[in-house]
């Protein structure tokens, strides 16, 4: 029988969906809240050993390793040298031990003898840029990373500006603080096959690295990531932790569990680079941004660091911008949720706020005037309304800091791409004779909700309940998928899932048409039943007509099923205690677009998470290194504080339904970007204290209030 011409898959208009564009509780929620979800940390295998790392205790040294003492200890089954010679960070892994229990492994790690010849080091900017500073990289401690624009044109435009603001903004190094620390369980028992249970953002990406360490064919390495406790950009590779697990497993042909403790996580898990940005901006009497001179230093340790390009989102007449990496003997920066963007946003949004104040402009109107994309105008109006800006007393000048507390409001905007990667993902949908439906893709769910839409897109297409479709992911034996980072997963995966769902529906309709002798066009799937011509079949009755092997359909990425380019606006309202300097964020509002909202509940959760992470960055988080000893002081969650439940304000997450794009776009990065700036701006709005250096601690608030009382400006 000739196949009727198939129409390609298209996303339905939002209102016609039964599942998509609705609130869908995540399908793995019950497993997670009941403790039944098995993370890599939870994997226990017969004969499994526990691995522990031995790390360099000083910032820079010549290190030699002696394993003999460790190998003599009871329970220690393997020990390996990971690195000898020059080390460049506290925490650089030099050796590792595997033993029958965690305690024996820790004893073993302590028994590894290191010969350390400490070398000169530099752990902060001042030390790295001092004359005669020890070289962190072969190319020096300060590396220019790019320059855009015309400095002279900027100087001329600034000279003609109505008002000019010049200021330095800085941000500390931030950690990812994934709930699940780095590492994996390597199950290698000799032979030429292995299974890796990893906490990773790249289920497919890590197999080749593991194969290289194990010296077996990459095709024989299976990787499993059924549940994953957060990555935020820090878990794209097998990493040192995974490589060492494989080395230990190879050494003794036994499974090795190596997931690091919190201190090791802080030392070796990477971070968001710090930065110091010197900006000079001008504004015209009419309220237009005339010029920007921007100089950024990025503090990525032995890595390069990141700061997004200036002017961040805003339209500025003339711009000259330079970026440089300043290297130190500290752990390398890595990708972290919107790499470089929160840093650029904090500096630029603060400067915009300062220029609006200098010119006496309303903060919202001033932003709209200098944002070209009209999407931001409607989003800013919406968050302004929601946060109470229209009735707020301090819209173009800050409050006067009288009394014991002050309330202020601040704003910021965000941008992200969020499109998918071409041909990176495939999906397989199976309909079984017994009525079971599975939707499979090897991708990983970092907590973002991939598993839920993997089922929901298929259920929507087949007119089934969400629970009728089983989603399978986190396994490199399933159809291919890319790493989850840069908010590309939705744009990469959802089109392939949609395509597979569509293929399955069309193939099932064709099959039923043939079996029942009706027109393919008359077969519809809705509400758990199948209508074919004049007949109505239950789903299970329809499936019983399938052959024993059921029905399989494969979907590939289709460009038109995704889009890219997201926008967001956020507002924060704070209450500043003028006596203790404590800042209570009372409310945050975010309006975010992302094309078709696949799962509105997951999106709002993602928005809430972004605002919380930004609040934590703004008020609390700061990596502290003792400049005299070179040691990390904040290697635990007591000294490196993240926001707790009592810090969380009223959060209003608004999905921008004025965005009429039909296809979904990734947005998780965008929502973490503007919150820190919005909070800093709100503090200024409340009491006239401009804080230019994160975190926004009570001490800094009090210093600012004291300076304001003396009529000074704090820089």
């Amino acid at each position, binding site marked *: 029988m000739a196949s009727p011409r198939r129409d390609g898959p298209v996303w339905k208009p939002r209102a016609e969906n039964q599942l998509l564009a609705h609130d869908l509780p995540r399908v793995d929620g019950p497993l997670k809240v009941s403790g039944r979800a098995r993370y890599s940390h939870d994997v226990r295998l017969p004969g499994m050993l526990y691995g522990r790392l031995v790390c360099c205790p000083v910032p820079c040294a010549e290190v030699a390793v002696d394993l003999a003492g460790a190998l003599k200890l009871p329970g220690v089954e393997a020990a390996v040298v990971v690195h000898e010679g020059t080390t460049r960070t506290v925490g650089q892994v030099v050796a590792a031990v595997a033993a029958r229990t965690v305690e024996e492994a820790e004893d073993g790690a*302590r028994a590894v003898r290191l010969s350390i010849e400490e070398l000169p080091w530099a752990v902060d900017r001042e030390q790295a840029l001092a004359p005669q500073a020890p070289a962190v990289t072969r190319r020096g401690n300060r590396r220019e990373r790019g320059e855009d624009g015309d400095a002279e044109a900027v100087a001329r435009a600034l000279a003609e500006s109505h008002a000019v603001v010049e200021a330095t903004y800085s941000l500390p190094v931030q950690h990812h603080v994934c709930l699940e620390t780095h590492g994996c369980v390597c199950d290698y028992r000799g032979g030429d096959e292995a299974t890796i249970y990893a906490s990773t953002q790249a289920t497919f990406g890590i197999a080749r690295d593991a194969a290289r360490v194990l010296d077996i064919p990459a095709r024989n390495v299976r990787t499993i990531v059924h549940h994953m406790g957060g990555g935020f950009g820090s878990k794209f590779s097998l990493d040192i932790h995974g490589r060492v697990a494989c080395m230990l497993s190879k050494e003794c042909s036994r499974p090795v569990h190596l997931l690091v403790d919190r201190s090791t996580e802080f030392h070796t898990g990477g971070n968001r680079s710090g930065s110091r940005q010197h900006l000079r901006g001008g504004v015209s009497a009419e309220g237009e941004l005339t010029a920007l001179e921007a100089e950024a230093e990025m503090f990525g340790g032995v890595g390069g660091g990141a700061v997004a390009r200036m002017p961040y989102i805003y339209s500025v007449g003339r711009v000259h911008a330079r970026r440089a990496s300043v290297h130190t003997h500290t752990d390398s920066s890595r990708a972290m949720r919107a790499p470089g963007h929160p840093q650029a946003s904090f500096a630029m949004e603060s400067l915009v706020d300062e220029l609006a104040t200098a010119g006496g402009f309303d903060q919202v109107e001033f932003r709209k005037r200098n944002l070209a994309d009209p999407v931001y105008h409607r989003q800013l109006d919406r968050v302004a309304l929601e946060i109470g800006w229209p009735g707020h007393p301090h819209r173009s000048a800050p409050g006067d800091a009288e009394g*014991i507390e002050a309330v202020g409001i601040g704003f910021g905007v965000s941008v992200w791409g969020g499109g998918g990667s071409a041909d990176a993902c495939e999906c397989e949908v199976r309909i079984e004779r017994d009525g079971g439906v599975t939707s499979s893709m090897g991708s990983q769910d970092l907590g973002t909700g991939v598993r839920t839409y993997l089922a929901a897109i298929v259920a929507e297409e087949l007119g089934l309940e969400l629970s009728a479709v089983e989603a399978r992911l986190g396994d490199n034996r399933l159809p291919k998928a890319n790493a989850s980072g840069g908010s590309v997963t939705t744009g990469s995966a959802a089109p392939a899932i949609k395509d597979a769902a569509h293929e399955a529906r069309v193939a099932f309709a064709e099959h039923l048409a043939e079996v029942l002798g009706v027109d393919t066009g008359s077969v519809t799937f809705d509400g758990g039943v199948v209508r074919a011509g004049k007949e109505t079949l239950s789903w299970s009755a329809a499936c019983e007509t399938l052959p024993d092997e059921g029905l399989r359909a494969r979907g590939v990425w289709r460009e038109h099923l995704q889009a890219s380019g997201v926008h967001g606006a956020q507002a924060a309202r704070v209450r500043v205690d003028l*006596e*203790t*300097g*404590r800042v209570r964020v009372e409310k945050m509002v975010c309006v975010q677009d992302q094309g078709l909202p696949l799962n509105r509940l997951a999106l709002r959760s993602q928005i809430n998470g972004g605002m919380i992470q930004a609040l934590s960055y703004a008020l*609390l988080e700061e990596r*502290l290194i003792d400049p005299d000893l070179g040691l990390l*002081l*904040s290697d635990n969650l*007591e*000294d490196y*504080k993240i*926001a*707790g*439940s*009592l*810090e969380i304000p009223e959060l209003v997450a608004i999905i921008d339904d004025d965005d009429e794009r039909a296809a979904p776009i990734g947005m998780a990065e965008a929502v973490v970007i503007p919150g820190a700036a919005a909070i800093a701006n709100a503090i200024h709005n409340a009491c006239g204290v401009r804080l230019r250096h994160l975190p926004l601690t*009570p*001490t800094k608030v*009090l210093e600012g209030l004291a300076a304001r009382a003396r009529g000074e400006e704090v820089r």
Partner: protein
Amino acid sequence: MTRAFRPRSLDEALALLADGELAARAIAGCTDVLASDAAAGRVPPAVVDLSRLAELRDIRTAGEEIDIGAAVTFAELRADRLVRRHLPALAEAAATIGAWQIQNRATLGGNAANASPAGDSLPVLLALGARLDLASAAGARSLAYDDFHLDYRRTALGPGELIVRLRLPVPPPGSVQRFEKVGTRSASAISKVVVAFAARRRGACIEGVRLAAGSVGPVPRRLEAAEAVLEGATPATGLAEAAAAAAAAEVRPIDDVRSTAAYRRWVLGRLVRRWVLDLTGPDALSTD
């Protein structure tokens, strides 16, 4: 390897602790000692668990006192009716220490014996005028809590001596108490400054003033200079500021990973000032 003992009577516990060769350490909730031993790689030769000793486990009224066993947990204190009614500052401190898991294990006597300058219940014990019943194999004695903390992490406890009970006077009618803690975040945070206040109004006068603070020096301490400013005073312009200045001047805070000396000093003064303004009411506020 550590030897662990779980005595069933106080005498048995004291005998174990008196054994010099055993070199045993008393433990109860272990919330601090376990973590700090693990961090330092210390392995104590022997431990004596106090949590089964009935003498240390109850709260009762004895005359004009609330008499609290040293091994009563903060969760128990937080929920206890007597404590909530008569010692609200202690109930509040108990509800603020660590997280619930910590409060379920950590004990009042342990907090005192551990003697951290940041121990949240310690300023409360000072402000409420606690007395300690101490015991060792050599005998029992009573000690004013004011005399308990000698220096950084050093107490008046002799070798093998235990805190058995903590006695706090029932405050007379008209008394007010307050507990204030400033940490990096609202919960599960070690204090930057922790303060407890107690006083009563008699007519226009303030009397029975006891103020105490933690995290502002090597030991939790009374704010005697501030007390002297306030004792017997009547609300007047500048009283709150004078008390605040006295408090800020008499402490010796340090810079550390959690805060700075300057911030601690300033905030202590502001907390004292605010409390005095609240205590003395709108009269004082209007003259401010």
